């Protein structure tokens, strides 16, 4: 299988994602420039973290109009796997590939830290190697990670098992104190309707070696590989 890591001007976790796939998953991977329009050789696309176009105006708002995004849309329509991490999540929401929006953190400050998320859906292409309720220790690093969606959308997400991850404490309790940014219902990651597009604020690509403090992110990345092969 082959991964593509999309590079927007201002992406800054593109290399981290690339290294995680190449060195840890040991899978073939390319960088994909934001002006590319042919994505046919890829099985999974990663929209990495960073500050595409400086995150000016709104996070993800401008990257959404990059030429590559229409190709990403088609790729997703055909059922290809797409995962947006942090800024990638914000871009996918702006592009309406995922529901909702990411507002500035309720602390109004950038937050970078290790925290815990609970796996809510353990059958998706991105989490099937986890078990439901499993607690992962993965870092966040964002200024706008406060997930918001309208009440009916939230209900839909809940009913259709489309909430992927929720912020929790180290024992897996979803509490207000464990919510780092004010996200509605502690949501840290969601799925699209068909389950092939995922977005999450935490950075699995940063938690791929014990040297870095955690290997829990590998479970997410490896889920993708196993699903495709």
């Amino acid at each position, binding site marked *: 299988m082959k991964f593509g890591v999309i590079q927007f001007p*201002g992406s800054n976790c593109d290399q981290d994602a690339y290294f995680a796939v190449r060195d840890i998953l040991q899978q073939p991977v390319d960088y994909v420039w934001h002006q590319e329009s042919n994505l046919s050789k890829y099985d999974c696309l990663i929209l990495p973290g960073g500050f595409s176009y400086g995150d000016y105006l709104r996070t993800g708002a401008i990257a959404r109009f990059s030429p590559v995004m229409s190709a990403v849309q088609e790729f997703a329509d055909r059922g290809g796997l797409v995962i947006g991490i942090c800024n990638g999540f914000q871009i996918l929401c702006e592009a309406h590939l995922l529901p909702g929006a990411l507002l500035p953190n309720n602390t109004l400050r*950038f937050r970078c830290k290790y925290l815990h998320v609970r796996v809510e859906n353990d059958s998706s292409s991105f989490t099937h190697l986890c078990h439901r309720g499993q607690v992962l220790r993965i870092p966040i690093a964002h200024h706008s990670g406060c997930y918001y969606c309208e009440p009916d959308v939230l209900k839909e997400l809940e009913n259709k098992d489309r909430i992927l991850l929720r912020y929790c404490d180290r024992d897996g309790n979803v509490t207000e104190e464990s919510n780092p940014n004010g996200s509605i219902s502690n949501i840290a990651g969601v799925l699209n309707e068909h389950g092939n597009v995922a977005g999450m604020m935490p950075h699995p690509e940063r938690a791929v*070696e014990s040297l870095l403090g955690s290997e829990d992110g590998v479970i997410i990345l490896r889920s993708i590989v196993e699903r495709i092969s």
Partner: protein
Amino acid sequence: MSANGELGSRTVRETIPIPPEVYREMGLNDEEYRRVVAVLGRHPTYTELGMYAVMWSEHCGYKFSRPILKLFRKYREAIEGSGLENAGLIDIGGGFGIAMKMESHNHPSAVEPFQGAATGVGGILRDIFTMGARPIACLNSLRFGNLDDPRNRYLFEHVVGGIAFYGNCVGVPTVGGEVYFDDCYSGNPLVNVLSVGLVRLDEVAFARACGPGNPVMLVGSRTGRDGIHGATFASVELGPDSESRRPNVQIGDPFTEKCLIEATLEALKTGYIVGIQDMGAAGITCSTCETAAKAGTGMRIDVRKVPLREKSMTPYEIMLSESQERMLAIVQKGHENDVARIFTKWGLNASIIGEVTDDGLVHVYDGDELVAQVPAKSLAEEAPTYELDTEEPDYLRRVQDYDLSHIHEPDDYNEVLLKLLGSPTIASKEWVYEQYDHMVQTNTVVLPGSDAAVVRIRGTKKAIAITTDCNGRYCYLDPYLGAQIAVAEAARNLACCGAKPMAVTDCLNFGNPEKPEVFWQFRKCVEGMAEACEFFEAPVVSGNVSFYNETPDAVIYPTPVVGMLGLIEDVEKRCTSEFKREGEIIALICGWSTNDESRCDLNSLGGSEYLKIVHGLAVGKPPALLMEKEKRVHRAVLKAIDELLLSSAHDCSEGGLATALAEGCIMGDVGAKISLIANCGPAAALFAETQSRVVVSLPIEKLSRLREIAEEEQVQITVLGKTGGDKLEIKVNDEPVISVKIKDLSEAWRGSIPSAMEK
């Protein structure tokens, strides 16, 4: 310039004398003006005058500090040899080098903290990637006044916000730093930013305008009226009219900087760039004359070719603009398009503004008209230097001889410990570093919070450790000793991570050097630092000087910040400062022997945070330092880490032994039972900031080997106690003095800055 390179005029139009009030306002004195006239053999044009004023300011020309900086060996060698580079370069083996530099942005941050700090980050990054090095980490060393004052809270909040805004967006992790709070920094905040970059030693780029005929390209952002005379601004005291000088503030665009980093590194890989220089202070003036001077060439540029952000800018304004996110690249003739294409791909401007000449002159044209024609070397290397007077300040005897014998023991040691832990200078800086992306690039293997940050070098087993240190109060009480302690502490911090010191970059923050007492402090600090850096085998390879950090009400403490780089050969063998588990031995590795303990100043509370916080005093002598003893401690700690004996290592600094123990407990979330034997009062035993000490924890079965190492290195090992429980309990000479729940210690330490900022 016409298409064939022929120029309209070949000499500057007739010039007339410049009135004294004009050149004085720009910062040149009468003598300096006469010198300009002598160099040119005529009066300068207005544009030329501006170029000299800014290049001969202290900020760019180091006119006061250069003679003293020659005490730094590498600096002297560079000045006498091939010249200074943008950043120091350190060979870490395996074909890799680390570029390292620290820079101040104090004055801009005092008037506009967010943009001032942000553009400080941008500036130091350009010094790194202009050498072809990819920036891999930033640190910041900050000083503010007391947080009770809303203005200081505002400065703190926005400086940190500005660093976060810029550093996070460009994707360079901010992995460490330090923050001190003291009244002397009220109105004079210090914002020093350090950056390191990784480069293959055979791919280092140089700031040289080689090859007459080669085109000169301006890349990056457009030029606006930002920061005209910023360098001059940094070379005067802040006064009541500083507010009105505010147009000097520049606005940073980290998005453009991120693209500029990628484009520059990509363009350098083509091999078609023969020389490159970032634009910081004095913008196009500085980068053209420095690159030409260094290569022994000249340069001809046309300001009309410079892409502008604002209409109708004068040549003077264009030459002096400090618009951010720009670089000057000298390109191999015939390959202009290969280079330009890369910058265009990243959405950046790339315009040819002139070419290299062989006549040693910088010629500035405004279309057909020659508006400046000056010898490049006279601007870049021949700034006048001054030997300023020095005089030992009056306060020194008074504070050093202060009688500490009447300082009585406190009633409640628990309360003192909690107070010290809650002192913002000692308290956890989580509030700060949580705002910084310290993990991007996924190489940070020791996160902020330990004694030094550790960043692995991907593809090798190596890692680098970096720290910044300086206790300004020590330097105020004894500049020479204070500066030496800053170096010793930096090296100790590295040792605690398992890293061997390699090099130092410094940021020398002082008041007005034209005051003999300030210049005395400056000289003493540099003397102490230079000597200590040689001793610890970490030579000063780059640095920066910031003078005039004073307001009519206050002068800052002399604050020579040390940024030190260390090398870890095997990243698996690194160490952190928190206690790891219950039931381990806690021991002190100490450079002083029992005999030394009779030395009266050893357990002295002089200069301590304890005296400051509990008694409101900044007096006494700083703690004693014997560098040989200090070095033995580093060797012992390094050996013990290398043999995998230690679970943790943490140096004793501000707040003394009790604070170091408490921090080990809090960060490790485990208690400790400690028993100290002391020939002094409990306050000194707990809170004196005696140097050359490291608290370690280890499994009991490793203790005998640690003792052997101590013997080999001639240092003392004292077993202090054991980890375990949910309290920190300390006895001094069998008398229980401290017993506090870790939870309470943690609240005091972690809660202090957030609650101060909620006010």
